[in-house]
C-alpha cells in the first residue's frame, strides 16, 4: 500500500533557482536561506521517497489566460523545465508517476473534486525550485513527481477549506493505491510577499510564523482563514499559502514538525520552510490517557 510519510512546506522563489544554477547559494545574501535547507537535504537522503505529490502554481508558463484550471494534476511521463524568459533552467527533466497520478485523479473525481488532467506540459520554477532546495545539484531527480497545479493567480482561487479537503481526499487516494510506495506531499509558494503596486514588498513575520504554528498539532484553524486575510496581512502573493493547506490536509488529523526555517529577505519575499510528519497520536494519547495521568499519583 502506498503511504504518505511526510509533508514539506516551502517557498519557491525563482531567484533561488538562479542562485543555485550560478553557484551563488553560499554567498552572504543566500547562505542564510540555503542553510535552512541543509537539514532537509540530508534527511531526504535517508527518507528516499519514491514519489512526491508536488503542489505548486504555474506562473504563466504552462498555462496562459486561455485556460485557467482551479486544480490540475499531471498524469504524464515526463516534464521539461519551462523557458520563463531567460531560457530553461539547467536542471534534469522531471519524471512523473502516471499510474499513481491517474489513480489519484480518478479517486479525486469520484470524491467530487473536478480535476483537470494534464498529460503534456512544461514545469516552471514553482516546481523545479523546491526540487533544487530539497535535493541540490543532481544529475537526475531522485524521486518521481506528481505535479498538482493550483490557480492562485486569477480570482477567486480555491478557499483554504477546499484546499485542506483536497489534501484529505489525496490521502484517501494514496492509501488505496496497491503498490508499496513511500509518498511525500509538498506544499509550495509563499510566504508573505507582494509583487505589485505601491504596497509591494510587504512582509509580515508574525503572521507567517503563526501560520507555521498552525500547521503543527491537531488544530485545523488555518482552513478557516479567508482570502482577504492573506491579502491584507501577507500581501497579494501571500495567497499562495493556501497551497500549503493541501499538504497539511493530506497528513491527517495531527502532525508534528521535525524541521522549521524562516528568513527575510529573499528577493521580495520571506522564505519559509517546514517539514512535518503525520502523527499517529500515540504521544497525545499516552499523555491524555487515564493510565498516564494516574502515573504520578501511584509512583
Amino acid at each position, binding site marked *: 500500500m502506498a503511504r504518505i510519510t511526510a509533508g514539506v512546506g516551502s517557498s519557491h522563489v525563482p531567484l533561488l533557482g538562479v542562485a543555485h544554477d550560478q553557484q551563488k547559494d553560499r554567498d552572504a545574501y543566500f547562505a542564510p536561506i540555503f542553510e535552512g535547507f541543509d537539514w532537509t537535504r540530508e534527511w531526504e537522503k535517508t527518507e528516499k521517497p519514491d514519489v512526491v505529490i508536488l503542489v505548486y502554481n504555474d506562473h504563466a508558463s504552462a498555462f496562459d489566460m486561455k485556460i485557467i484550471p482551479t486544480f490540475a494534476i499531471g498524469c504524464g511521463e515526463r516534464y521539461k523545465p519551462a523557458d520563463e524568459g531567460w531560457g530553461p533552467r539547467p536542471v534534469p527533466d522531471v519524471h512523473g508517476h502516471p499510474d499513481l497520478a491517474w489513480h489519484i485523479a480518478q479517486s479525486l473525481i469520484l470524491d467530487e473534486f473536478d480535476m483537470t488532467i494534464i498529460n503534456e506540459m512544461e514545469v516552471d520554477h514553482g516546481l523545479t525550485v523546491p526540487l533544487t532546495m530539497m535535493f541540490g545539484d543532481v544529475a537526475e531527480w531522485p524521486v518521481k513527481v506528481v505535479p498538482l497545479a493550483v490557480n492562485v493567480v486569477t480570482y477567486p482561487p480555491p478557499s483554504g477549506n477546499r484546499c485542506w479537503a483536497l489534501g484529505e481526499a489525496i490521502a484517501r487516494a494514496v492509501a488505496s493505491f496497491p503498490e508499496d510506495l513511500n509518498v511525500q506531499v509538498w506544499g509550495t509558494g509563499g510566504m508573505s510577499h507582494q509583487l505589485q503596486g505601491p504596497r509591494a514588498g*510587504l512582509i509580515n513575520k508574525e503572521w507567517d510564523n503563526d501560520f507555521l504554528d498552525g500547521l503543527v498539532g491537531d488544530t485545523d484553524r488555518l482552513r478557516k482563514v479567508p482570502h482577504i486575510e492573506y491579502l491584507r496581512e501577507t500581501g497579494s502573493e501571500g495567497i499562495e499559502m493556501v497551497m500549503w493547506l493541501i499538504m497539511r490536509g493530506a497528513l491527517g488529523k495531527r502532525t508534528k514538525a521535525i524541521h522549521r526555517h524562516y528568513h527575510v529577505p529573499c528577493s521580495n519575499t520571506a522564505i519559509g520552510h517546514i517539514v512535518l510528519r503525520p502523527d499517529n497520536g500515540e504521544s497525545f494519547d499516552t499523555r491524555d490517557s487515564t493510565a498516564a495521568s494516574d502515573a504520578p499519583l501511584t509512583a
Partner: protein
Amino acid sequence: MTEPRDIHAYLAEFEDIPGTRVFTAARARQGYHLNQFAMSLMKPENREKWKADEAAYLDEWQLTDEQKQAVLARDYNQLLDLGGNIYFLAKVFSTDGQSFVQAVSTMTGVSVEEYQAMMNAGGRSPQGVRSKKDSN
C-alpha cells in the same frame, strides 16, 4: 465555508487594500490581450521580434492604445490598472533583463536602492497598509 457566499461582498473587500490591485475576473477580462501579448515573450523568436521593433510587435495584438503606451513606457502600475497581471508582465521585464526586485520597485515610489534596503531591513510593515477605510 470560509469565503462570503455573495460574490459582490467578496470582491468589494479587495478594493479596500491600499496600493493593491487584485487580479479579479474584471481585470482578467480587461487585460486578456495584454497578458497574452506578454506571454508570447516566452518564446525566444518572439523576444527577438519584440526587441527589433516594440511598437510594430505590439500592433500585432489587440491592445488598446492606452495599454500599448503603458507597455512602451514600462508603467507597471498603469498596466495593473489596465488589466495586467504581474506574472505575465514579468515576461516583459525579464526580456528587458530586469529582476523582480528592479521591476517591482518601480511601482513603489522609491528608488531600487531604497526598496532593496527596505527588503534587507525586513520588508514593508503591514502596519497602516491593511485597510483604506480603517486606516490601519
